[in-house]
């Protein structure tokens, strides 16, 4: 296993960002993370098993997420699945990224050529 590193210098890829976002609701196993990401992005981002677990490995190494335990998911089958949860550094990194994205959206909204946001929140 790679040595644990600080999450402060971690740069998020779209996949790792959405995985962290999916885990913000609570602990999940790999397949549940995939489903949550697909659902939350409206199907525009579908993680493959390789991308998912490579991202998980990197985030574990940076202490952004942690393994909780291994147990079956009653909604799927009786196979034991490893669950993951957000850690405090993971929450911090996610929060920082969200704040950064909000600032970008605010900057974009201030541009005269771009449309003002609709009351529903969409640009």
């Amino acid at each position, binding site marked *: 296993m790679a040595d644990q590193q600080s999450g402060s210098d971690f740069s998020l890829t779209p996949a790792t960002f959405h995985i962290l976002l999916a885990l913000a609701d609570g602990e999940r196993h*790999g397949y549940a993370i995939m489903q949550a990401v697909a659902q939350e992005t409206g199907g525009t981002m579908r993680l493959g098993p390789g*991308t998912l*677990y490579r991202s998980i*490995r990197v985030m574990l190494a940076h202490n952004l997420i942690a393994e909780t335990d291994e147990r079956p998911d009653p909604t799927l089958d009786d196979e034991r699945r490893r669950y993951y949860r957000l850690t405090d550094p993971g929450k911090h990194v996610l929060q920082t990224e969200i704040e950064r994205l909000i600032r970008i959206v605010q900057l974009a909204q201030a541009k005269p050529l771009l449309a003002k946001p609709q009351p529903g929140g969409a640009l």
Partner: protein
Amino acid sequence: MTGRPTIMASIWLYRQLLIFYPVDFRRAYGREVTQVFATQCRQTTNRQGLLHLWLVTLVDLLTNALEEVLMIANRKRQLILVTGLLFGLAAGIVGSVNAVTSATLVGDIGEEVISYIALLTIAALAFGSGVVAARASKRAITGLWVGLLVGGIASLIATSARVGYSISFYDTVRNDPGEIRDWIHRGGGSFVSYLIADRIGGYIYTTLFVGCICGVCGIGGGLISKAREMRQVS
């Protein structure tokens, strides 16, 4: 739902394809990756869905396996470079001491003793670098590359020290009964031609000689490190 035999065959095939991933990744996540793919297969409603899943999964598997292999190769290269540089520098210092030691300073026997001690120390450093590199990379052959690198760096430093010494202390070297005087007596030419002809030859000779010794010691260290690791596993 897709038929059970088709799903079982898909899972079996996917498990075989995991061979493309490096062994560490397979050990750590092979079961989970297969488990996720198996669940995805069971969620498909027909053969068309399964075919689509396979296409997407194949691209995912091949791109991620390639990235993983490239990442490890890059890490391994860095490891070989850093280990080789550090051990090579140490071996170069030892070689330099030997290179600037002449019989006029320590006597014939002293010069011989120092040269043997230096060679043994350089060989031990190459062996040590092979052990370190093979342990970190988990491959015995890495010891050979690191050993060769140590040998190359050591001979480069030592021969450069010798040339620098010859230029800086020309008078001392000129009186060296074993070297320049003989060279000039043999009609070899001037001091400059001595430096060019003898020392460039010295670079090649030393690099080949020390490089071969260090390469052998490096792979020896690598093999011993690997054998010890396998004994611990069993």
